[in-house]
Each structure stands twice: as C-alpha cells, then as structure tokens.
C-alpha cells in the first residue's frame, strides 16, 4: 500500500490477457452473431446477477458452528488470486494453503497468481463474476475506494467477530495490530485486510556511519552537522526516489511535523481541512527538507533519476540517508549483496526542535498489502475463512519467514529468526516506539491525492523549483480539488 513501486515485478509466463480475448472471441462466435453482439457489449450486460452477493446461488446458508464459525460450504471450491510481485506467491501455496487445507480437506483451492491484478480481474468484476479472494496489489492494483463505493467488496465484520484460528476465546479482531482494522475500513465498516506491517523511517548506511564515527542524529541540528561532515567526505548525505516518487520525502516531512506538533495535524490533513498543509509545524518540516536541497545535500542529479537507480546508488555507498519503508532491504537485495560489508539500519526521523510534543522514538508504522473478498463471489465465506487461516500464528510466522516482512498479526514475528539486519533494526525501533505509532490515511482514502497530487508539489520543493510558501499553496490546491469534487467518496476520522 505504501507504494506500488516498491516491489519488483515478475514477468507473467502466461499470456492471460490474450487468452482472455481469445476466449471472448470464441465464446462470441459460438453464441452466434446476435448474442455475440450483446456478449461483447460492455454496456449491454444488464444485471442478471448484478445484485448477487454470493447467497443467491440457491444453496441454503450453511450451518454456523464452533468448528465452522463462518459457515463455509464444506465441499465447494474457493478461488484465490495472489499478486505475484515482490512477495511472490509461494507464501500462499506453501504456507497459507496447507494450513487452510488441513482443516478443510474437501474445499478445493483454485490458486491463481497474477502480476497485473486489475488487468486480469477488472473485466470479471464488470461481469459480476469475481474470484473469492483477491490480493489487490502492485502496479495493476484496482482502486479499493471505488470498489467499495460500488458495493463490490464484502463486509468483513463477521470475520473480525469470529473466533481466531488458534484460540477460540480470542476474536480475529484482537489478533490484528492496532490501526489495522481502521486502515481497511470505510465509513466504519471493515472491508480490507492489510496483512503486512511496514515500518517507515530514514534508512542509513550503517557501515559508513560507523567507519567515520558519525553519530545517528536525533535532532535536525545534529542532522545538519552530520550532513556537513558527510559532504566533506565527498559523499552525498541524502538521496530520495528521484523523478519516480519524490513523495517518499513526505514521510519524514509529516513525521517530523507530527513529532513537533502532535498527531492532530495529520487528522486535519486526512479530513481535507482547509489550511491543514499550512500548519506551522508542516512548514517547518518542509523548510528543513527544502534547505537540504539548498545546501546541496541531495545526491547530484537525483531529481532526474529513476527510483531504483537512486536507491541502488545509496546501497552502493554513494549516499547515506534514504527515506523508505521496511521493504527496502528486499527491494535492493541485489545491490546490497554486492558488498558483504554493507549494513543498513533504520532510524526514526529526527526532532526539529527540543520542545517537540512527541518523543524522537515516534514512528510511522502501518499495515499494508491489501486483501479483500469480492461481494459477488461464488463462495465469499470461504474467502473470509482463508483470511482467518492467514491470521493464524503459524500463517503469520510462515509469511514472515518466507518473505522477510512483518505481519499485522499480533505476535506474528515472535520466535522468528530474522536474518535481515535492516528489518531487525526496524523491529527494534518499533519496540522502542511503544505506543507512539503514527499514521495518516489520505493516501489510502484518496490515492491520486498523494500521487500525482502532493507528489508533484514535493518534487518541486526538493528540486528547489518552489519555496515552502508555494509548496503549501500547491498542497492546499490539491486538497481543495478533492474537497470540492463531489464524485470523490469522502472519509473522515
């Protein structure tokens, strides 16, 4: 969820779009020209089963029992769609599906993996024939807000209230880290399960810092001192995700502002309040990052670079600090592996001033990687049951071991040996943060507000093309556009 650009794409081996079109064409010809005309009509479908919510298949609603809290039909197949990206799909086939299959031996799992989720499923949604479980992620991610607004996503309340997989006395809801249910809800109704847990912060080249005796800065003044030292060594102090995603710099920006003034400024931003972006603390944080550029502390030419090139240069020791989430270790695994001495670590963003409201350990951490059950699926109860299996301790641990990512399941990484120093440092920082976990929801609620909206404004700020006042003005313009657009489904918190 953090960014669709944060995972490597793996080329699909099956030309599925083509086969889909072929099937469509063959189906159209077999039905004869008249019906083919209707069948090929995007607009002519009517709603034969448009209002179906899975219960109209004629089967009597299955019994809900202690063994079967969601009342899934015991011998109907379930179709699972997994995004085959940075995490691959072996965590599903080798971890979650065996757990599910052990309890439901007669439920056949039809496993599908896709790189372009939207490309494969958009037409199936329009035809009211979606699969039973979707990992809606990657570049081809469908707009979750729109799916929910169109009534195409199953309400997960029953799942959250059901007893958890391991301990019937604990409901599923309590197996998820705080904020996870909120993140997947719209208008107070839970729709999406965000299964991974991502820690955000400033990642640094620990090897270089240790070698040169540079301290990990906890205040902005210390940061500027360290940067001056680094620059004297002919290394760039900072790098960001270049032309692809300057929005990554919003994360330290908003974190530092929140530490200074408290989490209410984030609520104002999420609620699209007028003047939210003009808050003094946000201006100060924006000024700090703009100032880095004015001092020449960003890697030369980074504003014209692809994000993988920029991060690769960072991993190869050309720069020291880089904003990112805990996926970066996976993402830059190749560059990191080139140099066995290279070690990365994460630090919380420094304090702008000593009279900050929140301690320096405060972190942005949030659940990510969305999964949902389509409302019109043939077997939505089984899709929810599959989620219940994922939220088991074995499921979460298996996931963390397989893909080196934390999960949003409480206790899901306990007893797991993390062989990733970066992720371990993130986990340590998370423990140090304790209750001081912050997050903002506007990128989840209004994806195009963050990208391209705020993304472009921040890009201009970092390039030095605009100053802080103009940046605030542009961010406010973006927020106003969304506030005043009636076609946007508004959320508030």
């Amino acid at each position, binding site marked *: 969820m953090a960014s669709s650009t944060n995972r490597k794409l793996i080329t699909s081996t099956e030309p599925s779009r083509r086969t889909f079109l072929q099937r469509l064409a063959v189906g159209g010809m077999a039905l004869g020209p008249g019906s083919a005309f209707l069948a090929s009509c995007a607009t002519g479908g009517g709603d034969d089963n*448009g209002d179906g919510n899975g219960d109209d298949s004629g089967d009597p609603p299955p019994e809900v029992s202690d063994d079967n809290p969601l009342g899934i039909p015991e011998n109907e197949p379930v179709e699972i769609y997994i995004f085959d990206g940075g995490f691959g799909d072996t965590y599903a086939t080798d971890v979650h599906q065996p757990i599910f299959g052990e309890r439901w031996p007669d439920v056949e799992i039809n496993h599908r993996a896709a790189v372009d989720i939207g490309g494969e499923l958009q037409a199936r949604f329009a035809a009211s024939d979606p699969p039973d479980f979707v990992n809606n992620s990657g570049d081809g991610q469908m707009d979750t807000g729109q799916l929910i607004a169109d009534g*195409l996503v199953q309400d997960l309340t029953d799942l959250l209230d059901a007893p958890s997989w391991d301990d019937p006395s604990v409901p599923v809801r309590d197996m998820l880290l705080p904020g996870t249910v909120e993140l997947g809800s719209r208008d107070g109704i839970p729709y999406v399960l965000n299964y991974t847990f991502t820690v955000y912060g400033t990642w640094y080249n620990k090897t270089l810092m240790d070698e040169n005796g540079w301290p990990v800065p906890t205040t902005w003044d210390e940061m500027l001192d360290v940067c001056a030292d680094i620059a004297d060594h002919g290394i760039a102090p900072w790098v960001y995700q270049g032309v692809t995603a300057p929005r990554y710099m919003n994360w330290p920006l908003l974190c530092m502002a929140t530490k200074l003034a408290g989490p209410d400024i984030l609520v104002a931003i999420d609620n699209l309040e007028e003047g939210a972006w003009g808050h003094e603390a946000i201006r100060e944080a924006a000024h700090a990052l703009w100032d880095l550029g004015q001092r020449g502390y960003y890697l030369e030419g980074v504003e014209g670079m692809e994000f993988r090139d920029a991060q690769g240069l960072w991993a190869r020791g050309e720069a020291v600090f880089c904003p990112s989430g805990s996926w970066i270790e996976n993402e830059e695994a190749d560059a990191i592996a080139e140099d066995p001495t290279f070690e990365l670590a994460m630090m919380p963003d420094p304090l702008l001033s000593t009279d900050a409201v929140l301690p320096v350990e405060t972190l942005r951490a949030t659940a990510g990687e969305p999964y949902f059950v389509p409302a019109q699926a043939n077997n939505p109860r089984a899709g929810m049951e599959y989620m219940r299996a994922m939220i088991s301790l074995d499921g979460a641990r298996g996931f963390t071991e397989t893909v080196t990512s934390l999960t949003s399941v409480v206790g899901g990484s306990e007893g797991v040996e993390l062989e990733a120093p970066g992720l371990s440092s993130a986990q340590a920082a998370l423990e140090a943060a304790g209750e001081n976990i912050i997050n903002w929801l506007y990128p989840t609620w209004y994806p195009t507000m963050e990208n391209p909206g705020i993304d472009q404004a921040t890009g201009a700020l970092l390039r030095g093309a605009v100053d802080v006042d103009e940046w605030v003005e542009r961010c406010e313009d973006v927020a106003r556009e969304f506030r005043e657009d009636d076609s946007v489904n508004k959320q508030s918190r």
Partner: protein
Amino acid sequence: MTLSTPAGRAPAKRARPHRPQTRRASDPMRRGKYLFIVTFLLPPVAVYAIYMLSPYLQAIYISMTDWSGLTATQNFIGFDNYVRMWNDDQIRTALRNNLILLVFVPVLTLALGLFFASMLNVGGRRRNAAVAGVRGSSIYRVVYFFPQVLSIAIVGVLFKYVFAPESAGGIINTFLSKIGLESLTRLWLGEPRYLIWVVVLVMTWSFVGFYVVLFSAAMQSVPRDIYEAALLDGASRFTTFRKVTLPLVWDTVQVGWVYMAIQAMDGFAIVHIMLGVNGGVEGAGDVLGVAIYREAFASSRFGYAAAIGVLMLFLTMTIVVIFMRVLRRERVELG
C-alpha cells in the same frame, strides 16, 4: 501503390470488352448472384460492426455515464464528464503536448525521411550511372531500419537511460561532459520544460526508419530518364530533389503525413514507459492517451476516460480530414 497508375497501362484495364446487356435484374441467375454475394459479405460486415463500430458507439455512451469500469451497470450523467474535461488543467497540458507532437514529429520525421531516402537513392553521382545512392547506401539502408525492428517498449527503456543523469549512467550527459561541454548537461527527465521535446526526439528517431523505406520504395519507381534529363539541363541536386523527386513521391509523403499525424496523436507507449503514468515531472509530458489510461485504470473513472477518448477520436478524425484536404495536390501522371 501510391503512385497513380501509369497512363499507358490504365486503358487496357478499364476498357472491358463490351458485352450486350441481355440479362435483366429480375433474372433468376442474377438474383442468385446477389444472394451469393450477400451471403459472403454479411459475416465480415457483421464482424466489422460488432468489433469496430459497436465499441465506438459504446465508448460514446460510456463517456456520458459515471461508470467505474468495475460494475455491471452505470448511471447516465449527460455531459458532466465533458464539463469536467473542460475544467481539467491536466487535460489542457496533455492536449498542448499532443499538438506539439502533431506539428513537430511529422515535420521532422518526414523531412529527415525524405532527405535520407533521397540520399540513399538519388543523392549520389557515379561515373556510369546518373542516378545512384551515396557511397555505402546499402549499409545505411539497413542501419536506418534498426529502430523499426526494436519494440517500442525497448525504445522507451533505452531512452530513459540515454537521458538519465550522469551518475545513473545517462549517455547524453556523460558524452557531453567527456567532450568538455558540461555546461550543456541537463536533467532531461527531471525538468518539466524538456519532457515533451525529449518525446519529440525519441518518436522521430523511432519512426524515421520506416519512412526512409517507404520513400525509398517510391523513389525507386521514378523513371531514371527524368533524372538524366534534369541532369542534362544542369539541375543541381537540390533542384532535382525539389522539382523532380518531391513532386513524384508527393502521394507517398501525403500518406506518410496522415500516418504520422495519427501516430503523433497517440504517443501513449513512449510517454507511459519513459515518463510514467502521470506524464513525468509535474505531469508536463502528459499526452491524451496516457490521461485516458490513468483515468480508467488508476482512478477507476472509465466514464471520464471514455470522454477523453471521444475527444481524441474527433481530434484525430478532424486532423486527418484537414491533412487530406490541405495536402491534396494535382497528381503527376507518369508517362
């Protein structure tokens, strides 16, 4: 194919042996023939109607709905999408960029294509041939065609690295600073004002090869004796080109121009691959094709995307019609 039929052969084709019209339309044999023809024509017409015409009509209908592309039904909202489009600054940027592509890409491509083709075919002078290509023209012929062989996706990725910053392996900037022209290095893809010109350059580069081949074919069919006559009259190379070559391949240029205009109205693949789905920094390199894709698949606004598509359809059609009319010229008949 594009040169008009040589006058010498045409009459032979046209003048059919005159047969007395003994059969009437009511003749059963004739009716049978119509039935026969209609049976054969109907399937292709039906396929055309279903797969070509109906999508257009549906797109026009979808453009007047609020369809998200995900549901089985949609609400009719009249011209709201068109009003939204009128007020959308990003669409203006995209439209402006499409117009820049429309003006500069065809002019550059056709000019270069004509120049290269004439150099390859009629530009040289050799002892025993009045009309020949320049030295090594057979090699150039192959080289020019290389870009055409590359998939447009590869061209996009390649040029992303051609224009990248020096530290990320950018070829142009590295070359410029190696020859001491560091002052000319720019962050080509990091500055809003360069983006569309980078696209113009890349599109021209990738299309020129095709037009060289197209124009070469046309120039090959120009009779040699015309050139010999021009040469005897003391015409310079440029005059020969202007007075002989160009008029005789004008039909081909015209076809090329229309093709180019359509390609320039598109530009989707190059922009999407080189600059990303938002049209690069500040969206300054956006084109209508990318805007359609973005609205449909990133913002789930199929209705709005269809409205932009309809705008593009009408623009493309208008431009093609205008080009056909403006460029219509007296055909030169070859004797």
